[in-house]
């Protein structure tokens, strides 16, 4: 990591964690959009985690759903505070991924992707017909996160309906953590194994790597973070139905990741933020939104498969070339 990169990452994090809340402290709308962006970014990042082992998953919404339901049950039926049910629902989601990963990860490529599409529908319909999971009515009245006191010292303030700022801090913190963990993962030996299984599973296997286990591991890691988002969104909107978690959300996660640049760690984040703000700018009634989205996706795949970020990279390399070609100042 170069110094330039280090500095820019720190700058982005400072903007995200300090400047945005300071500037938009009074605009609930802007905060809300930022909260949505951050949630999308995390799930979009989990699409990328599965992609590092070479699979395209349209099933991430299932893990979000698992997290949301786990959190709703833990907090409404068992009375656990949000701060405990948040990590627990991530774990529940990861456990679920491990369970279903075994059969579905036996298949690869296109077949796996098709299975994940079907999985989203199976899961949604299954939950619709299960009474103890709320059925078609879903859950409502999920408690808001509790405040945390240590003696007189207030660590976390009261969450209420009128102020979204505490929520913003929670999701911004989650996004930062996710980014850090995934960055470390990528640099770790496990990350190297993930890439090896993607490039050539047969060679990886011949080196004594249990490819299936690593594939399941990748799916479980992705499910963990998706589950966290599910839990957060359950406590943020406090009400959800099985239809909240549709295949279209899942497809959006994939498309945002690709538009941002799925080969880059920052790609899904860039894609989610850029497109969410674009949709907000266009307004909800824009019927041509779908066409615009389609054109963007097709253009990205055909003309710059690396996504938005690859454009930035190529501009950087253009600058380097120009610097070498152009005469230095003072010559």
């Amino acid at each position, binding site marked *: 990591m170069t110094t330039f990169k280090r500095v820019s990452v720190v700058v982005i994090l400072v903007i995200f964690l300090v400047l945005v809340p300071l500037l938009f402290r009074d605009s609930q709308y802007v905060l809300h959009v930022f909260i949505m962006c951050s949630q999308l970014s995390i799930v979009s990042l989990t699409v990328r985690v599965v*992609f590092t082992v*070479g699979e*395209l998953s349209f099933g991430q919404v299932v893990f979000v759903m698992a997290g949301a339901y786990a959190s709703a049950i833990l907090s409404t039926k068992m009375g656990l505070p949000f701060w405990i049910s948040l990590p627990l629902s991530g774990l529940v989601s990861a456990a679920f991924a491990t369970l279903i990963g075994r*059969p*579905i990860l*036996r*298949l690869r*490529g*296109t*077949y796996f*992707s*098709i*299975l994940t*599409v*079907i999985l989203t*529908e*199976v899961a949604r*319909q*299954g939950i*619709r*017909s299960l009474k103890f999971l709320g059925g*078609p009515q879903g859950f409502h009245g999920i408690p808001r996160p509790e405040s945390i006191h240590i003696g007189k010292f207030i660590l976390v303030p009261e969450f209420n309906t009128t102020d979204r700022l505490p929520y913003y801090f929670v999701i911004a913190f989650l996004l930062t953590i996710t980014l850090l963990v995934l960055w470390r993962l990528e640099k770790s030996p496990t990350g190297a194994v993930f890439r090896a299984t993607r490039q050539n599973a047969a060679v990886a296997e011949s080196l004594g790597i249990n490819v299936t286990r690593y594939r399941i591991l990748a799916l479980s890691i992705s499910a963990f973070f998706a589950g966290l988002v599910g839990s957060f969104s359950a406590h943020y909107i406090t009400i959800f139905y099985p239809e909240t978690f549709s*295949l279209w959300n899942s*497809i959006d996660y*994939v*498309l945002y990741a*690709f538009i941002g640049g*799925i080969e880059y760690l920052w790609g899904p984040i860039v894609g989610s933020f850029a497109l969410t703000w674009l949709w907000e700018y266009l307004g909800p009634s824009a*019927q*041509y*939104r*779908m*066409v615009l*989205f*389609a*054109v*963007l*996706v*097709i253009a990205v*795949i*055909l003309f710059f*498969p690396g996504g938005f970020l690859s454009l930035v990279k190529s501009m950087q390399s253009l600058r380097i070339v120009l610097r070498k070609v152009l005469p230095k100042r003072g010559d």
Partner: protein
Amino acid sequence: MGEFAQIVINGLIIGLSYVMLSLGITLTFSIRRVINIAHADIYMLGGFMAYFGSQFGINYFLVLMAALVVLGCLGAVLDTLLFRRVRDKGPAGPMVLSLGLMYLIEGVALLAFGEKVKGVPSVFKGVIHIGSISFGVERLIVMGISLLLITGLFLFLGRVKWGQAMRALAQDPEAAYLQGIDINRMSMLCFALGFSLAGAAGVLLTPLFYVGYAVGSTLIFKCFMVLVIGGLGSVLGCLVGGLLLGLIEAFVVAYVPGQLAVLIMFALILVILLVRPQGLMGRGELT
């Protein structure tokens, strides 16, 4: 008894339309190694052709022929413009590309035809009575034409040189190149055939059901189920999977109430996934 026969007929009709749609997906997959998610939207385009055909009073069979030709050409064009360019780049990119294509077609359809679903009045009136069983003539004709088209495709793949070339490409592309088979031409033909079938299905079935801009995205999901039941890349699997899914749907919907029906269907799919994740007919060559 009459009710039973009715359910079988309904199941077969729906099943045959699934077969027609997923045959195209299978064909194009076997050559380009890409699942064209936008495929079911061609059904929607065919449906709108039927709708406008009946609005302007054009002969039904003429519309059917027009759908076969026009949408077939569209397939060849889209293959050349889009899918050829992402060949050999792994499955993910092309899949996302076809997703984009789906959004494009549906988005344009939304702008052009509006949000409302449209019905088409039935073309053939009348009922045939055999003993206590009665069939609508229209359903029988739809079934007959579907069967004819599917048989035609099977004959093409089995007997005609180009069809055999397609199968060769699916089995072993390298060996097929060495025999002088042009993959680009074959792929165009494949897309054309697949789109023709899908469009024909749209024209045939819209008088029985309805058409709207988003009909494709519900259907593509059914196609995926067919592919998973039958096995991806197997033409025979398409036939078995499509008919099976159609029949199961018809029976479950008729005999099991509402929500439970959906659950039972998904439970069946789940069992197949767990026992034979590669599908009933396995993953194999294009026969």
